[in-house]
């Protein structure tokens, strides 16, 4: 009986030890530099999608549908019958956490000085390489896996 208690106590102690010292080692986030070096081979220097160029400034406040097309602008996004702008999409479980994407300013298209809802402004998507955070923990760090994300680049006008 005494031996049984002793063995049970030892097993319990062992379990408590394991619980405290192994299962609870917190998993760390890899540094941005490490994540960047994993993602880098997927991006050639000089490669740029429309929403991923340096000149793009995302809106903090979303714009409304303009009254008419801005014909004096030099930018495709203002002169288009389906005008668009850019905003930031954020996901803490992804690298990069912030990605710039296009959004359509109008539901319809701007023709003959007004918004015509017989046609639609539709976003055009391209695949962008990203790293997706997994629940897996390897060598004390979260595992990030390469993935492709569909990101809106511009808008085009189409029949519904």
């Amino acid at each position: 009986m005494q031996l049984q208690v002793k063995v049970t106590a030892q097993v319990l102690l062992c379990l408590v030890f394991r619980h405290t010292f192994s299962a609870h080692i917190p998993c760390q986030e890899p540094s941005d530099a490490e994540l960047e070096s994993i993602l880098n081979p997927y991006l050639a220097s000089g490669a740029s999608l429309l929403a991923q160029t340096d000149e793009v400034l995302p809106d903090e406040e979303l714009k409304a549908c303009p009254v008419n097309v801005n014909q004096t602008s030099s930018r495709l996004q203002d002169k288009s019958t389906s005008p668009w702008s850019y905003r930031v999409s954020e996901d803490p479980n992804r690298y990069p956490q912030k990605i710039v994407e296009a959004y359509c300013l109008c539901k319809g298209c701007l023709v003959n000085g007004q918004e015509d809802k017989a046609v639609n402004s539709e976003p055009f998507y391209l695949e962008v390489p990203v790293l997706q955070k997994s629940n897996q923990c390897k060598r004390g760090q979260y595992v990030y896996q390469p993935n492709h994300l569909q990101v809106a680049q511009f808008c085009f006008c189409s029949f519904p």
Partner: protein
Amino acid sequence: MKLAAILMLQAVAVAMAQHCLSPSHCCGQAEVDGAGAQLSYGQPRAPQPGSCNVSTTPGPGLRLPGPCHANPNGPLNARAIAPWDFWEDCDPARFPQRLLQARCRCRHCVSLRKPQSQDLGGNSMPVNVNLTVYYRQPCPGRTGAFYLEPRPYQVVVACVCLLAR
């Protein structure tokens, strides 16, 4: 000591991600082809995966525009008011080997009321993006060894309708 071991293991993991991607990480042909197929991304890809044996460029046969009209019940490229067609851009030394390039079907945009005729108030404009593609390069001084070189590659992905001045 433990930290040094962790840092070393991380360096190994990063090196594996860059496998076949530089002259200092050379691979055999089959391995480099596998890595190229894995790395290839970007739209629009050819609908059927596969390889091509002959390079195709936008020659006269590929540039001929189709009739200028939209098909409201058709796929995305035909439903657009600045509709476009595709030609297959093929290069056996590149990953992806087959890419779809868009070509505007019309000089102007199609009329909203009559999708079979043009509205001169708009102009079809091609939209270019620079995708990342990979080229198989021989490793200097090593026969039968290759690496993949990432390079930007301009692809016309679609057309948009701009209001004519």
